């Protein structure tokens, strides 16, 4: 394994959703917390892609915000290339910050509607001081626009003149403008149409190859994740339940939740499966089930699952957080289909 560029250990983020003090006093009721991220560990080797998948409330977007310093962890450590990223973005030295960038999900909200595109792309260069001279900066902006498949003349336009896919290209141009090494991508293709999605995914793969980028890719779409990832982490209600190389996850998923996800993804090649299996829904993150959070929906849950939270442990190539797996109660998943 090449040297890790990012190591996350015991990362936690708890949000306090309690009512104001006076309301609690008069109406009763205790404090309410949401453990959005509940002890997450992973390592990303340089030049590879780790994807985090999960459904609503699993905490993957919060992990993204924690890594970028948009919010502070409640506990745990984030080490980027040897530097400890404690605290907020402002507390991290600029030299480190410049090397980490982010691409967002909503192409309509991630660009300032009142700014011209050239100014948007040039902002990181200006604020990190990589290109203080405006003329040089503009030249670099033009070069970036061409690099992501737009044209230099597009720098004079406003975001609303572009389609969703083009806006994501602008976002990508902005993100790579300071020559970062690490990119957090928060569902960058979820808001795009399928045919545009392919363009953006291809662009991102090409950029990774040419610029040696490391990605943390967040998505709910397993097929997209399959195409772009080296490692995949499955999250459920704030916990990583399985972390494995991409082909392992699809060929031999261990955790019952991973299996459920794979089973329920609508598949264009498997028409009309019978999927009337009751699978429940993701519970409210404020009051998660006790023990293993997945036990109410799990066909393999036993008494221990209800009371004791499982520990993240290696199981072959994968790491799994599941009593059933660790007790050997799961049968190997039949290969979903060949190829």
């Amino acid at each position, binding site marked *: 394994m090449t040297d890790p560029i990012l190591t996350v250990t015991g990362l936690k983020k708890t949000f306090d959703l309690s009512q104001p003090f006076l309301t609690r006093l008069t109406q009763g009721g205790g404090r309410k917390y949401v453990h959005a991220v509940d002890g997450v560990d992973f390592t990303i080797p340089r030049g590879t892609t780790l994807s985090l998948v999960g459904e609503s409330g699993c905490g993957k977007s919060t992990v993204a915000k924690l890594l*970028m*310093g*948009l919010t502070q962890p409640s506990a745990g450590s984030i080490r980027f290339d040897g530097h400890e990223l404690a605290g907020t*973005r*402002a507390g991290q030295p*600029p030299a480190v*910050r410049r090397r*980490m*960038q*982010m691409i*967002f*999900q*909503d192409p309509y*909200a*991630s*660009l*300032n*509607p*009142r*700014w011209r595109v050239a100014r*948007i792309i040039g*902002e*990181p260069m200006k*604020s*990190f001081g990589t290109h203080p001279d405006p003329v040089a900066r503009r030249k670099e902006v033009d070069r970036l626009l061409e690099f992501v*498949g*737009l*044209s230099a*003349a*597009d720098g*004079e*336009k406003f975001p609303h003149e*572009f389609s969703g*896919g*083009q806006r994501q*290209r602008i*976002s990508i141009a*902005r993100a790579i403008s300071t020559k970062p090494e690490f990119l957090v991508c928060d569902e960058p293709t979820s808001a795009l149409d399928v045919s545009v999605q392919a*363009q953006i995914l*291809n*662009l991102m793969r*090409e950029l990774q190859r040419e610029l040696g980028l490391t990605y943390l890719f967040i998505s709910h779409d397993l097929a997209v994740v399959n195409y772009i990832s080296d490692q995949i982490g499955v999250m459920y209600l704030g916990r990583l339940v399985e972390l494995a190389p991409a082909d392992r996850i699809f060929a031999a998923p261990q955790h019952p939740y991973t299996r459920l996800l794979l089973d329920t993804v609508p598949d264009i090649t498997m028409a009309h499966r019978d999927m009337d299996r009751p699978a429940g829904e993701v519970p409210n993150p404020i009051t998660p089930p006790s023990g293993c959070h997945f036990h109410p929906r799990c066909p393999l849950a036993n008494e221990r699952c209800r009371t004791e939270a499982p520990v993240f442990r290696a199981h072959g190539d994968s790491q799994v957080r599941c009593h059933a797996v660790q007790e050997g109660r799961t049968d190997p998943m039949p290969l979903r289909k060949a190829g």
Partner: protein
Amino acid sequence: MTDTTQIKTTPSALTRLWNSDVAWNFRRSWTARISSVLILILFAAALFAPLLATQNPYDISQLFLLDSELPPAWIEGGDPRYFLGTDEQARDLYSSILYGLRLSLIVGFASVALAAVVGISLGLLGGFVGGMVDGAIMRVADILLSFPAILVALLVNGIARGVLPPERHADAAIWVLILAIGLTNWVQYARTVRGSTMVERQKEYVQAARINGVSGMGIMLHHILPNVLGPVLVIATINLGMAVLTEATLSFLGVGMPATQPSLGTLIRIGNEYLFSGIWWVVIFPSVVLVALVLAVNLLGDWLRDALNPKLR
């Protein structure tokens, strides 16, 4: 791997404005065109008052007391030199209206500007910073709103008069008025801007700016401010009408512009006292002009609000 974008030369800002939806809406709307023509006429009249007026009504040397209380020129007894008649001090009403309009508009614009600057700043601050700062600003706003604007203006006025020596009252009147009206009207700007700021603050382009190390102040001024100014324009336009009316009310009550520098409201007050002696023109004409101004401004403001409302497009 290119994207098929059509490359066009970028039009200038003015061209973009002319081609925009708002301009197109304007060209189609009767009320917008009529009210803006009216406003332009009134603004021009006020601006060029010294040129358009037949006399300077504040210069006592230009007044001939024998010409006092003359009716308008088309009525028997009138004098063509004094087109709309004269008041009890032989001041030409037409000229007085021009100068009065000027004062009314100056006070109106200045107070709106003051209210906007204060309101936008506080709204941005409160919406962006949140927490106790926001709470404090909103509580001050709530308290201010629970007082009728006229009363607050009277209060400010009274304090000013108490502080200033009597000979300065007349000069200071205009500033006191601007201050009084401006300080009572900032709340609506603050509220709107605060709401919009809180929405924009959550958007991803603000997060991107934070990631790129832009300071809080930088984000507020360069990122958020341009995006929250839209509704402000509408508020300011409608507010202008209200400010002019408030000034007229204060002057009518005797605590606004003095008789030596009358605004439209003062003129109405003066004329009111003589109404029952049959001298109707001193009240009617300034009132008509005042109503026309406020009506035109309000109509334009209403049109602007609908034209800028993205949901109605």
